[in-house]
Structure formats: C-alpha cells, structure tokens
C-alpha cells in the first residue's frame, strides 16, 4: 500500500474531523494508512518536561532520602525561629548513613550537626549504634528566670553555646519495645543579663559534662510519626556529671505517657498525654538554667512562649479532640496545662498555666510533615509551626 502525500495541515484537519483518507477499499486499509502515516513520524517515548522536573525534585536527598547535598529547613533550637541551611547525606549498607547539616536561624543563631548511624547488627538488625555531634551558637534566647511566678516583664535574653558528642545504641528489643543507652560529652557556655527575676544558675559559666543516659519506650501506636490510635510509655534517666568539680552535677528523670482513643473508625478521637520531668542534684549542686525542665512552647503549653517557666521539675498535661477531614489532614482542638516547681511534690501547689487552641496537621500514613497551631492563653495568642505529631 502506498501512502498518499497529504500536506500536514490538511491531514490534521482530516484526522481531526475524522474524515477518511482517500482511496481505501476496506476498513483495514484505512487503518493501515493511519498506521503508515504514523510510522513515518515516530519519536522516542520519553518523559515530558514536567515529568523530568518532578523526578529531579523528588530524587533530591531531601525528599528521596538518597545520598547527596540537600537544602535544610527547620529550627536549630526551639525559640530561635525558623532556620535554613544545607545538609549532606551519605548512605551505606545495613541502614548505615552519615548526615551533616549546617543552618542559620532568623535570629542569627548558628548550628552544625553530624549524625552517623552505624550499620545495624545482631538478629534482623535489632541493634543500631549511632554517634552524634553538634556545635551551636544560639543567640538571644528568651529567659524569664526560675520558678512559677516569674513575670512577663522579667524577660531577658541570653546566649547559649553548646558543643555535644554522644554515642549510643538503640535496641529494638521486640515489636514496639525499644531501649536506648548512650554516653557523651556536653560542654557549653552562657552569657547575658540575668534580668529582673534574679540570678540564673550557671549563667556566665563554662561547663563540661559527661552525660550518660538510658531510656526505654513501649509504643503501641501504628507509627511514631503519625497515629490515630494506640499509645506509648516512655521513661528516661540522664546523668549529668559536671567535670572539674563544678557544682552542677545532677540526674534528670522523665516519664511520658500518651493514649489515643479513636471513635467511629478513627473519624474522630481523643488524645491524652502526661509528661513529668524532675531533677535531683548532687549535694550542694545546682542545675544550670539552660538544662532546667521548662514549660512553654510547641511541645508543652503551646499558648506560652518557649521555655516560659523553668524549675527543677515540671508536669505537662494535654488533651486533644481530633478529627480527620482528610487522610492527609488532621484537625485538633487542644487544651494544655503545665506547671513547674522545685520538686514534683511541689507541683500541685503551683499554678498550672493553661492554654487552648486549634491545630492542623498535614501528614502521611506514617509521618507528620507540618503542624500548624493557634493557641490562646493568659499571655495572648501564639502561632506554632513545626513538624512531627505532638504525641
């Protein structure tokens, strides 16, 4: 069969109007002519420009988790504002990876971090060793003094310069049960004016610590990153042993529990969380103010500024009513309460600072990418932007 030569525009018109090519005596010939026309103009089957762009974006280390350099966004330390930076990720066999990031925040704070997750070993890779190190230069951290009665007007700003190295192992002992143990070095200096609330323990000092820690988590949520049911129980002990006989050695104990109660096949649910932290100093020692348990901010009482109240102990209680407009969007009405005091037994006598608000969480099946919350309390409105599920 010989294809006729038809100007492209005419051919296009004919095809568009579904008029025939001329001269065929059968349907098969007509189709054959269309196929012959196409055979003369074949092209490779390739990705569109949009698809190429999408693949490049999604294959970046940030989104694909592959190796290489990637942009970094987040916070170098709570209370320092939004930060941008860059990271580099190197992957190796047996879940091993090395991550390095450097970032600067909107208030000029700097941070560099290195995390090395070593190859897993033992049965089915249950043992995961790791090494982490970081250096930060944190500027103008808001501080209101120690105790539950510090006033808004007591606010002052301090600089905090920590350097840390930590090494340990995470053991997935059983499904939902993990143990963490590690030991490392923490050194820091602080500088600034103590403000009207009185002296801040350790302000102006340069301290070096050996820090040992042991923790256990019992987690019956489907995923730690995002869940609509289940709960967890977490306990941790940290020993801060000050070097050079500095009078700042102490132990910190923390217990956290949460339960998520779904209704109507997770259409909505209630979520509860309790967090208690306390410290015990060696005789005559104190806890440096930057390491004191605190209340206020996106992880505790959201209507308060970050670390609004500090003391040697704290209790935080949170309740949320959650509903699910989408598989990728959860909404919540929440109520937070928190108090600080010298000891846990003092907490009932201390005023609980409360706040309430509404939040939206953009998430996937196993992670929470973005958490937006508007909270209100006695000190007004606060807006929280962060990642990860609240609990």
């Amino acid at each position, binding site marked *: 069969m010989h294809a006729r030569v038809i100007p492209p525009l005419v051919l296009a018109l004919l095809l568009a109007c579904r008029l025939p090519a001329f001269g065929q005596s059968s349907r098969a010939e*007509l189709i054959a002519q269309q196929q012959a026309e196409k055979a003369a103009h*074949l092209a490779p089957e390739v990705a569109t420009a949009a*698809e190429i762009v999408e693949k490049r974006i999604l294959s970046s280390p940030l989104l694909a988790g592959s190796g290489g350099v990637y942009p970094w966004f987040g916070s170098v330390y709570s209370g320092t504002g939004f930060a941008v930076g860059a990271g580099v990720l190197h992957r190796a066999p047996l879940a091993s990876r090395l991550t390095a990031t450097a970032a600067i925040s909107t208030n000029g704070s700097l941070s560099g971090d290195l995390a090395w997750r070593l190859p897993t070993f033992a049965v089915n890779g249950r043992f995961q060793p790791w090494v982490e190190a970081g250096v930060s230069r944190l500027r103008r951290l808001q501080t209101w003094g120690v105790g539950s009665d510090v006033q808004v007007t007591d606010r002052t700003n301090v600089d905090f310069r920590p350097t840390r190295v930590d090494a340990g192992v995470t053991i997935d002992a059983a499904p939902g049960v993990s143990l963490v143990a590690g030991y490392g070095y923490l050194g820091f200096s602080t500088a600034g004016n103590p403000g009207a609330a009185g002296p801040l323990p350790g302000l102006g000092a340069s301290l070096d610590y050996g820090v040992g820690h042991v923790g256990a988590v019992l987690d019956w949520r489907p995923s730690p990153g995002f869940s609509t049911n289940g709960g967890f129980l977490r306990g941790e002990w940290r020993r801060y042993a000050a070097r050079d006989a500095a009078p700042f050695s102490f132990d910190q104990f923390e217990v956290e529990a949460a339960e998520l109660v779904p209704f109507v096949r997770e259409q909505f649910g209630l979520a509860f969380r309790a967090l208690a932290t306390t410290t015990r100093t060696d005789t005559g020692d104190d806890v440096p103010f930057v390491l004191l348990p605190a209340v206020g901010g996106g992880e505790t009482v959201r209507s308060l500024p970050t670390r609004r109240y500090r003391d040697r102990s704290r209790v935080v209680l949170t309740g949320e009513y959650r509903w699910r407009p989408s598989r990728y969007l959860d909404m919540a009405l929440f109520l937070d309460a928190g108090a600080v005091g010298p000891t846990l037994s003092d907490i009932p006598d201390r005023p609980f600072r409360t706040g309430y608000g509404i939040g939206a969480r953009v998430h996937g099946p196993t992670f929470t990418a973005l958490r937006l919350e508007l909270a209100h309390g006695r000190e007004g409105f606060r807006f929280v932007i962060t990642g990860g599920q609240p609990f």
Partner: protein
Amino acid sequence: MRCRPGLRVVLVVALGAAAWSVTSGATPTFYDDDPIQVEPITQDASGAARYEPDLIYQTLEGLFDGRPVSDERARDVNTVDEVPDGPFYVNRAGHLPLTPALVARGANTSDGPAPGAWSVVSAKSDGITLGFTIRDAAGVLWFIKFDPPGWRGMATGTEVVAAKLFWAVGYHTVEYHIGRLRASDLTIASGATITPAGEAERAMVPDDVGRLLARADRDADGTYRVILSRAAPGRPVGRIRFAGTRADDPNDVVPHEHRRELRGYRVFAAWLNHVDAKGINSLAALVTEGGRTFIRRYLLDFGSALGSAATGPREGWEGSEPLVEDRGDILRRTLGFGFVIPAWRTARWYESPAVGRLPRSHDDWRPEDWQPHIMNAAFRHLRADDAFWAAEKLTYVTDDIIAAAVAAGEFGNPAAEAELARTIRERRDRILQTWLPAIDPIGRPALTAGGLTFDNAAVRAGVAPAPPGYRARWSRFDNATGAASPIGETTGAAAPLAVPDLSGLEFVQVEISAVDPAVAAWARPVVVHFRRRGGQWQWVGLVRLP
C-alpha cells in the same frame, strides 16, 4: 480541533459510523470488511524502546488533571460498537463459550515454575510490598509475591481471582499460580542486587532473603504461600498510557482516552474494587506473532482489589474516595469538626484473614461513584455507551464462573471464599442494574425472513422490566452518501418486529427504540444498519450513543 456541530451530527448520526469508519461522499460508510473483528496491525514496532513512566508524576497528573473531558464516542470500536480483538483486548465474555474451567485456567499455559531451585535475580524491597524475581530451573522468569503477616491468602488469592476475571472479560493478563516456598528453595543469582529502603543499591546477600521473608506471612511448617506470575512474553517496553498514543508505536493511532476497553476498564475495576488500576500496574511488551512485531498491553498486579490492599486489608475509603479527597469534602469535614462523616466510616464489613475486608452489603453501592486511587484520562472519558459495553460483558460472567475464579485463589477458607464470591456477584449485579438500563439496551440485531430480532441486555439480565413494546423506524440507506430516507415504521410487543418491503435495497437503517418504556433513556433509539449480501441481511452497523 473540533468539527462544526452540524457537520458532526451529520457525520455521526446520519452515517451511523464508528470511529474507524469513514464518512465522506467519496468513500462509503461501510466497507466490505465491516465490522472488523480484529484491529489491524500493519507496522513493525520493533524500534520501540523501554520507557518507564514515573509513578509519582502519574499520580500527581491523575490527581490534579483538570483538562476537560470531551463527550466523544470511543474511536476504536468497530461499526457495530464493539471493540475488535487487538493489542489491548480480546473478546472473550459473550464471544467465547466461557466455562468455569476455562476461566479458572485463564492465561495459564503451564503448571508453574519448573521443579528445582529458584535463583533470585532481584528483590522488591521498597518497603511497601515484598517480592522476588526468580528464574526457575528451566530458565523462565517468574515474579513471587507474598501475603502480609496475619493475612494468609488475602493478597495472593485476591490477585489470582482478579486476574482470572479480568482475563474472562477480555484483557491480556499473565500466567498466575499459587505456590509454596521454602527459604531453602532460593539461591541468589550472581549479579543479583537489592536496594533496601533507605540504602544504596548493592549486591544481594543471603541475609537479605531472610530479612525480606521476615516480612511475609509464614505457615507453621516454615513454608510461605506465594503467588507466582510468569514474566509476560516479549520484551518489556513500558506501561499502558491512559491518554494519547505511544510515540514509538506505529500501530497505536487511537488516543488511549478514546479506547473503549480502557474507558470500560473503569467499570471492571469498579466491579473488583481494583483501586490500584494505574499505569504502573500494567505492562507494554514487544511481541512477535505472525511475523509482525507489535506492542501488546497487559494488566498486572491485582493485589489491591476486592478485600485486599496488598499490605493489609482493604481500607474503608478505598473505592469510595480517590487517594486525595475532593477539596470540597475536605473543607466540609474540616468545618464540621468531625461530624461530617463519610458513609464508608459507618459501613458494616466482613473481615477475614483469608480475603481481607469486604462490605457486608452492596445494596447501597453506586458503581458510578466508584473511585480508583488515581483517576486517569480514559476513566474520565467513560460514557454511558462505554459503560454499557462493559456491563454487557458482565452478563456472561455467571455465578459459576465467579465461583471458579474464587476457587482458583485457593484461600483455604470456605466461609471466606463464600463471602468473596458473594461480593463479586453483588457488585456485578449492581453494575448490571446501573449501566444496562441507563441507555437503550438493544443489541445483537438480526434481519431474517422471520422479522427483525434483537436482544435487550437489561431485560435478559433481569435488571429491568420488558417495555410494553418496541418501535422500528426503517430507512433506505445510501452507503455512498450516508443519506437515510424513511420508508416506514413497525412496532410490536416483542421481537421479532415486522419488516417493511425492503426489496431492491442494499443497505437499510433501522432505529430501534422502546415504546413507552419505564426507563426514559430507552426512548432514544439505537441506530443499526444491515447490508444485503448473498441474499442475506448482514448486520454491519450500530450506534448506541452518537
């Protein structure tokens, strides 16, 4: 480019031609070889190269495709409104004498992998579903997949059932077998690599097999129930597109959104709740048959169908909502503080480890509202005549055939199998009730000495009452010009209808409709054409919806 509406009506209605048909005064409406039963493949496609579309791009394109949908008739149908056999589809239901045994065999041509050790060529370790590619002792490539822990039979059995039924309704599928695996059956082929989640690609080691098998359901005797799918014949060159044509396939001249079998795939996917009906779960393979090399399209990977979501039981939303919900729904539910509750949240379910999660009832199920995870252009272009075409195929999928397909899944749980068969029957029935009466269901007309006979698929399927009568408007038809001149009208309570004097005519056009039907859509006639050949009237044309 669009034709003027008037010209379009003349072209389509007056001439009653299908997409392949031609409609000018210079050429006939019907050629001597109409209606074609086989899609011609005239060009060598051996130059086609492999192109794997990006899953995420496909997903985004499907979720956010705002392009308008034209109400255009499928272009690949022959002149009697049927899909010819071809690289995408083969007529089976309604054409072959389907039997339970035939459907249970489906595309299988062997008894499974050859006895002996299986050599692992590669592993699927993307963290979602688990699988191996192996080569059997005879050198044949097979893909192995498993059930998720605690759901023995669900993913593997469901995949077999769906594959058999998709084969029955006409799609190209590959060979599937249920088998058993011992870890010791597997050896690692030299050069085998793996890319574990969160790791770089590297050579596979024996520990990898154990690590992957730990994620599969294991029987008490240490063996694993697996599904084995044989590699499709030919060389893979990509996946099925659901829009446009493949640029390097010279035989691919009908944009895929205008292929009826791809539009109708939506109905079949709804039937089996094959929510994962996307391009990545298909295959385009270069095959050589009859001296011609062409690209054949297969449907694959039915693990997310019926009560299975492959990695667990079907989620309640699957089939009711797309992967990302409608923006209006999200807004309403946001403002509703949780009290705007979608119906699927409160539906009643049957749940079994063998078959997953199935609706207890389909009385309220609306097939037209069914949603795959990701919509595609062909699905969007589904019209009433496309859906009728698919539904009519399902009238030939009997309860026995469904039972045979379910039995092929070898679930080992009679109660669960019964529930699965019930689900498939109920969904079929709801599709028949929905799509057969939605348009004039006249089909398979014949013009004999006894009169004009035809089939009413909706009445035959028992999903609509017979109308009080039928009307046939007869016209002389000029095949050269496409002009139709009325010559009379006959009516009757049922077929056969009387035939006016047709002496001297070569072509006749008949518009057949129901008289005073309970279903208003039946008043719109189907337009059929007959050609006299050798003293007999041959059915050559049917337009159900211009």
